[in-house]
């Protein structure tokens, strides 16, 4: 029994199966809400699954110049690193793994997919994917710092570097959530960059560089990549929920889970709203925007948090 339970955790809940199912649902909601806001009909609920099955069943084409082992293994690395993070984020009761400093581990694990996107583009050697992977890296320098700074603000005010303890602190002091609203907005905008969605979807802007870093990917490998991005959205929403919004409010069992679902949905809807209402910015404008606005706001947030911490 001791060996079966962790395997179930990894494979079913809150691991691969749950994340995959919830990610496809979130993707459908994202697409449907976008469609309704654009006065369109939108896809049926099974569309993301149908897309996934279609991609999985298609032929995989590998470019002649590409490094075959690297090219094939990258999507799985991206998926694995994203799924690993969910074990440190509270989904049902307490997280499976929780230790002082796990927020740093999460941020590191969430950087790995970005690096794999870069490697994916770079190893495909076509001009479009090369430019796409360059943009992935450039953009990484834009959003990574404000995202981590905004998390750091919460960590300072909660006096802990553990995601679970931070959410516990906000549960006990709900008013402190209001203090962190600027940091929350910074984190939302930065995660929009991390997820490579409009307005920060330059790495695979289809009108400019076709598929960007994924240009040469096809079939199963592309399907895994897209699933990884969908799951990344869920994980980021769960992380933002845990760090900024007080997580599950220490409610274990079903109601805690319901709170988790509602809150992550709200975060995802805000992300969808950003996507609907903005035009794509250029990669240099994106970096400029993050360093000109997001980083200062995040730093001010940290200063406010420090002040409150020392004063009260």
């Amino acid at each position, binding site marked *: 029994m001791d060996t079966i339970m962790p395997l179930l955790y990894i494979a079913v809940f809150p691991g691969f199966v749950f994340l995959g199912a919830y990610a496809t649902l979130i993707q459908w909601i994202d697409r449907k809400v976008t469609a309704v806001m654009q006065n*369109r009909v939108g896809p049926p609920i099974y569309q993301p699954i149908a897309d996934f099955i279609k991609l999985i069943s298609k032929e995989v084409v590998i470019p002649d110049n590409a490094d075959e082992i690297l090219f094939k293994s990258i999507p799985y690395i991206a998926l694995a690193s994203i799924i690993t993070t969910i074990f440190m984020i509270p989904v049902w009761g307490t997280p499976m793994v929780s230790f002082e400093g796990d927020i740093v581990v999460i941020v590191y694990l969430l950087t790995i997919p970005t690096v794999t996107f870069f490697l994916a583009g770079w190893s495909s050697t076509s001009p479009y994917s090369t430019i796409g992977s360059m943009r992935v890296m450039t953009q990484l320098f834009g959003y990574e710092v404000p995202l981590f700074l905004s998390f750091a603000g919460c960590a300072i005010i909660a006096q802990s570097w553990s995601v679970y303890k931070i959410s516990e602190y906000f549960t006990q002091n709900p008013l402190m959530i209001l203090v962190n609203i600027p940091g929350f907005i910074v984190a939302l905008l930065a995660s929009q960059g991390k997820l490579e969605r409009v307005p920060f979807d330059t790495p695979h802007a289809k009108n400019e560089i076709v598929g960007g870093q994924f240009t040469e990917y096809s079939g199963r490998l592309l399907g895994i990549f897209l699933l990884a991005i969908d799951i990344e959205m869920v994980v980021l929403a769960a992380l933002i929920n845990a760090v900024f919004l007080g997580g599950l409010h220490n409610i274990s069992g079903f109601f805690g889970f319901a709170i988790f679902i509602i809150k992550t949905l709200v975060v995802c809807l805000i992300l969808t709203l950003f996507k609907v209402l903005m035009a794509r910015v250029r990669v240099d404008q994106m970096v400029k925007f993050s360093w000109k606005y997001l980083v200062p706001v995040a730093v001010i947030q940290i200063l406010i948090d420090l002040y409150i911490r020392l004063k009260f």
Partner: protein
Amino acid sequence: MKKKPLRLLPEAIKQLTQKPATSKYPFEKAKVYPNFRARILFESEKCIGCKMCMRVCPSKAIEIIISDTQPAAQTGPDGNPIPQKKKFDCIMNLDRCIYCAQCVDICPKKALKSSEDFELAQLDRTKLKLHYK
């Protein structure tokens, strides 16, 4: 220049309560206006075989030929044959037709007519060749 972030927000929120603008075409019949130009109809009785339509057709889609079956010759009361109007057939190549309806405009006897029948896609190409008798 004044900037307003999220300029489309009120409009996008408003759409949440509205029906999609998309028409569910194959399930809902598409509305066409009168004077719509679609498949050309032909009335053999009116045609005098002047072939003006063939002359103006930009895509050579229409062809007027003499019918295989002509009306039987009749004789008048004085025993002389009465000249009968020849009967003409029309071959429409719908795959070539560009639906400009110039033939309808030019026809001096109004033997050609536009219909509102625009769902003309076929899997079998031979079905696109219509022979009006």
